[in-house]
């Protein structure tokens, strides 16, 4: 399929541009020179692309592959951050004890619940917003830029504002609840309120981003589908259900996969939500995610071996999630 320049067009004698110089009319010396040049040309053709892509792979090897292998090695040892070269082989101990580590499973559960209560509303809202923006609107560019603004804000800044909003004694949300006669909620120390608060930061940040992805996909849907649906007497809502949604299926799948990966790595929002307790995720670890637990073990408690084992377990869980996603998407594709 690929076109090789050196074989495509046969050299034309006396043409405007000489192609490959004819071989027969040359002296042996010239022929050798030509052969050398051609070898170099071929070598260039074969190896240069590798040189061009090598920076990425070198960086990947240094910052991706090496840490992965090193954490794998470290996870089989008892090793502390205070003396990283001082390793004591313990085999799979670090992994087997994860099975009875209630803090790990608590963190896994939190990651799952926070993931669900942030991803589901986020994608639904993004879909709704995209649908509205897909109508002809005055100043649509303005709305699109505004929607992307939260995504461009740093997590740290956003979380700090949310912490103030969700404050127990002086927070604006509790003040508003009080105003309409409801009880104050301790957003940081109770399980569900704290998880909802953390999710709200995630939702705020990513809804606009997903909405723009949906919007882009919606604009690629051929207009005549809507026209013929309208001719058949379908309402706006029916058009959305029967034209837009099926057409968006691959996009929806993409956002679900990306959001799932994002949710399983949730770290910054819960870390900053309680600046003092930091990585413990609240007094009772009520919003400690797997990312936080990993960080707490590695960087606060300085147990590199345990942290590495947690990292690898998370990696394996992510692979399982990836496979499940793949299977589901294949089923969906097959059924459509």
């Amino acid at each position: 399929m690929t076109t090789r320049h050196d074989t495509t067009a046969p050299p034309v004698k006396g043409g405007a541009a000489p192609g490959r110089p004819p071989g027969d009319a040359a002296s042996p010396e010239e022929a050798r020179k030509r052969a050398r040049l051609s070898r170099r040309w071929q070598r260039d053709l074969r190896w240069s692309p590798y040189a061009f892509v090598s920076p990425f792979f070198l960086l990947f090897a240094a910052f991706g592959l090496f840490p992965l292998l090193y954490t794998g090695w470290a996870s089989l040892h008892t090793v502390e951050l205070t003396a990283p070269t001082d390793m004591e082989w313990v085999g799979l101990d670090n992994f087997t004890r994860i099975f009875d580590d209630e803090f790990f499973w608590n963190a896994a559960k939190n990651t799952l619940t926070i993931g669900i209560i942030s991803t589901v509303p986020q994608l639904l809202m993004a879909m709704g917003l995209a649908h509205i923006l897909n109508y002809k609107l005055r100043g649509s560019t303005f709305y699109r830029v505004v929607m992307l603004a939260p995504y461009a804000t740093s997590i740290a800044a956003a979380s700090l504002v949310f912490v103030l909003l969700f404050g127990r004694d002086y927070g604006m949300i509790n003040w508003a609840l009080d105003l309409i006669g409801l009880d104050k909620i301790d957003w940081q120390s109770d399980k569900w309120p704290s998880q909802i608060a953390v999710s709200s930061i995630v939702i705020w940040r990513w809804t606009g981003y997903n909405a723009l992805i949906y919007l882009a996909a919606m604009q690629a849907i051929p207009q005549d589908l809507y026209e013929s649906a309208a001719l058949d007497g379908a309402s706006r809502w029916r058009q959305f259900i029967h034209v837009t949604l099926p057409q968006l299926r691959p996009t929806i799948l993409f956002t679900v996969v990306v959001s799932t990966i994002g949710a399983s790595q949730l770290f910054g929002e819960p870390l900053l939500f309680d600046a003092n307790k930091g990585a413990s995720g609240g007094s009772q670890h009520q919003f400690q995610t797997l990312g936080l637990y990993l960080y707490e073990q590695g960087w606060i408690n300085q147990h590199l071996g345990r942290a590495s084992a947690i990292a690898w377990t998370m990696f394996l869980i992510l692979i399982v999630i990836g496979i499940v996603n793949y299977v589901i998407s294949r089923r969906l594709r097959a059924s459509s």
Partner: protein
Amino acid sequence: MRAARTRTARRAVVIAAVASLGAGLLTGCADDGKDEDNSSSGDSSGKTTITLGLFGTMGFKEAGLYEEYEKLNPDINIEETVTERNENYYPALVNHLTTDSGLQDVQAIEVGNIAEVVETQADKFVDLSKVEGVQPGGWLDWKWKQGVTKDGQAVGLGTDIGPMAICYRKDLFEKAGLPTARDEVSALWAGDWKKFIDAGEKYKKGAGKDTYFMDSPGGLINAILGGQEEKFYDTSGKVVYKTNPAVKEAFDLTAEAAEKDLVQAQTQFQPAWEQTISNNLFATVACPPWMLGTIKAKSQPEAAGQWDVAAAPTAGNWGGSFLGVPKSGKNVEEAQKFVAWLTAPEQQAKLFAVQGSFPSSPAAHKLPQVAGAKNEMTGDAPIGEIFAKAAESIPAQVIGPKDQIIQQGLTDNGVILVTQGKSPKEAWENATKTIDNNLEK
């Protein structure tokens, strides 16, 4: 025609990009060379630059001590890098120490970490006890010993300490019908933290619901534990926090105060806690000298003079740091001399006058900047005298490598829960489970 032009344009862009990349690489190398020069034999003016890695607000610069040293030693130039929170500073320091790279000439170490550094990283630091002018007698005995290994190597020289007193609001005490004169207040709870709780109950009866007797459960348990000779580790270095009756007692006493609604459900140094100070809603706070600075920073101007300082039921220490000189620094010799000068009594006293960091050197306590110190937040109370007296009676405390983790577990995963309606028993279980999991290698 157009195509040709864009092609030339594109080529020009590519060439420019390649050229700038190349130039970048070249200048990168050139910069490196210059850096090398800078550090080993001084910059163009022949000066040696001593770098310091600090956390929080240690205030050497603010107190003008760098300038003074630079004036005394014209060929020295001093630069500091400050990380705001020790939680962020310390892991980075450990990383730099274990890889032996990226260290400044002088590194600060917080008291909560000093045991771990002395135990695990001593070989990365020079022995400061050999430096001219440094003598163990220059520091309070317990402070000196905290920075020294078993075989006598001084890993860090003490800067400040945190002798604890109780700061209280005179106006709130008066409203609640408690005495307001500092001696009477001290006598109210002298010698026993149980009496402090009793005073709190009296306060609660008189003052009603809006204000709290003390700021936070963390502050209270910290103050009680600060006066114990043994808290989390025994003298042999074993973790004993779960079986040490003193720890359980401090925990239960704090839990009792929380159940009686005497402490507010706050975590210290968080925005909500700061807002509570600003709104004048608690009557006492455990108060090392540096806390006066925090109170001042977070209070409304009207609060000046409303506070006063009484002695704590038992004297204890909260806070303080050390300065160490890593062997792999670039100016080890100069850095040692500088650290010895910076932690000498005169400089400690100057630091106290500006920054409120209380000197760890007994000689400094007698200097006029300390002995005669007054403070406007506390209605010109003679804070120098009060804190010096507290400093003398602080017991030598056994500190262990993981003190910080244990302490934080007891507060943030323990007593704070009682203020949120959990039983003391549940809170203790939650705390010990968390701590044990954090200690397990």
